[in-house]
């Protein structure tokens, strides 16, 4: 059997992951046509490349179907409640930096902290008869963060994309999403709460704690770890 390395299957995350390994003397490449998700590993023996959606990599690591995997801290924390027991952080990769934040309309001059958000939620609910809605796809992280901070009277509404637009469209009053430069937020007239950073995320190489490591997988893992220094 070989050591399975899971890497995001498309876009900049894939390119940067490939480049990161290249720098360490391990060449990852896609084989076959552009549309075929098959890959090849050179520079170290006994490793096979598995191309996956970044969102599925946490689950595959937790299930032990891949031994190593690259994905964001945000996705690991959101999808694996007991991530410390299921995966081990091998190395932060220095790209894909993004913060999971809570943002509200910039026109809410009276709201700058979670304390303000809580008070505004209370008044909002009394006025409108429903809870203040926060659009997000990070339900668990956001709920735990707000509950821990003692914010009440909010409701999470699911938004899998274009989350910044939900406020203008009045399907949500605030959002919780990933941002790297804040540009999209500004363009949509939103601002980040000053204590509203839930998580700082970046692309990270993880090792599964649940996968089976036979002699050949162990050998391949040692060889990779040696390259990483």
């Amino acid at each position, binding site marked *: 059997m070989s050591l399975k390395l899971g890497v995001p299957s498309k876009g900049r995350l894939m390119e940067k992951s490939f480049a990161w390994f290249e720098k360490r003397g391990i060449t990852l490449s896609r084989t076959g046509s552009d549309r075929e998700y098959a890959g090849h590993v050179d520079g170290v023996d006994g490793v096979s490349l598995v191309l996956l959606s970044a969102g599925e990599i946490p689950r595959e690591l937790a299930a032990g179907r891949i031994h190593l995997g690259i994905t964001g801290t945000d996705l690991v924390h959101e999808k694996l409640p007991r991530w410390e027991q299921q995966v081990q952080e091998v190395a932060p990769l220095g790209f894909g930096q993004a913060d999971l934040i809570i943002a509200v*309309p910039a026109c809410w001059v009276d709201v700058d902290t979670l304390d303000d958000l809580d008070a505004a939620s209370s008044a909002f609910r009394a006025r409108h008869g429903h809870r203040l809605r926060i659009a997000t796809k990070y339900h668990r992280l956001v709920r735990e963060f707000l509950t821990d901070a*003692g914010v009440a009277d909010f409701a999470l509404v699911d938004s899998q994309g274009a989350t910044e637009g939900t406020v203008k469209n009045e399907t949500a009053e605030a959002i919780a999403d990933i941002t790297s430069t804040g540009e999209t937020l500004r363009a949509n007239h939103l601002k980040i709460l000053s204590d509203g950073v839930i998580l700082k995320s970046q692309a990270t190489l993880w090792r599964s704690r649940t996968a089976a490591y036979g002699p050949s997988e162990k050998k391949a893992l040692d060889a990779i770890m040696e390259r990483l220094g």
Partner: protein
Amino acid sequence: MRNRAETLELAARLRSHFEQAGAAAVETPILQPAETLLDLYGEDIRGRAYVTSDALRGEQMLRPDFTVPVVQKHMEHGAEPARYTYAGEVFRRQEHDPDRANEYIQVGYEVFDRTNPAAADAEVFALIFEALEGLQLRAATGDIGVLMAAVQGLRTTDRRKAALMRHIWRPRRFRALLDRFGGRAQMPPTRAALLEADDPMAIDVPFLGKRSKAEIAERIEALRADAAADPISETELAGLETLLSVRETMPFALEHLRDVAVDLPQINGALDRVEARIDALQARGVNVEKLDFEASYGRTSMEYYDGFVFGFYAERRPDLPPIATGGRYDALTRMLGNGAEIPAVGGVLRPDLMLEIKEAAR
């Protein structure tokens, strides 16, 4: 997992024990409309209950407890007074501890009676106490009503009192609010700047979203009024602190709380109810001299309780959740009653845990 047949057998025995005490057995659907539960508990419930859905009925939850459906049933067509008992599965989503059951049997006893709340409290506690006899559990009790009375009677603005009441069940935020209203915590610099600004609404970003400009202006007004209000006095703050730290056997706790009432006289009514309950428990044969009372008990895990609260714990098994819990939830009946309300108190038992403890003791 425990032998299910044994658990069901014990559950049936407990339920018939409660029936003999005068309760009518009730059944409730396993699937509950999610909206009611979300409205009551907020987003927290999603972390604790399984949610499912279909295109016709929308979101449904696998019953996380019986209290809500039993209250609804009673409010719809129950005669007064009423006593109910039930036994069945409840479902709790577990995200942190794989050793905690996500499905287990609960047996409960609920009393809806407006004649004598102290007697009803004692009745529920004593029945559950009896059912747990021989298991050597520690009982903890408390009364959220004492803290609520203390807050409602503070000499401060109604807005502050409402904010504190809203966070009775969130001790951290409650403390933060108290520090701010008591002038112990610094105002965040952004708020100070906002209050100093001549026209804080003069900004160069568009007003958007459902929260209107008027609502923003209203909150700024509220913040200004709050900044102008006197802080809650040191005497009252110290009284609240002492109140929250009371943790003694029942008669001593009451004595201690009567001392607190010198500074916080608003709690005397609630303390009279505690005293009446002590008498009622004694009349039921409960040894109150050995019963613990913690003034802050029940603040973190029992959001709908607003009076007497209790729990039974296996001291030698700190890994286990409480074996039984219960309390008074008058406010819940108000929220579910569409204008109607009835004082209510109840408790639930976990037969699976009772068997586990019994077995370990053998």
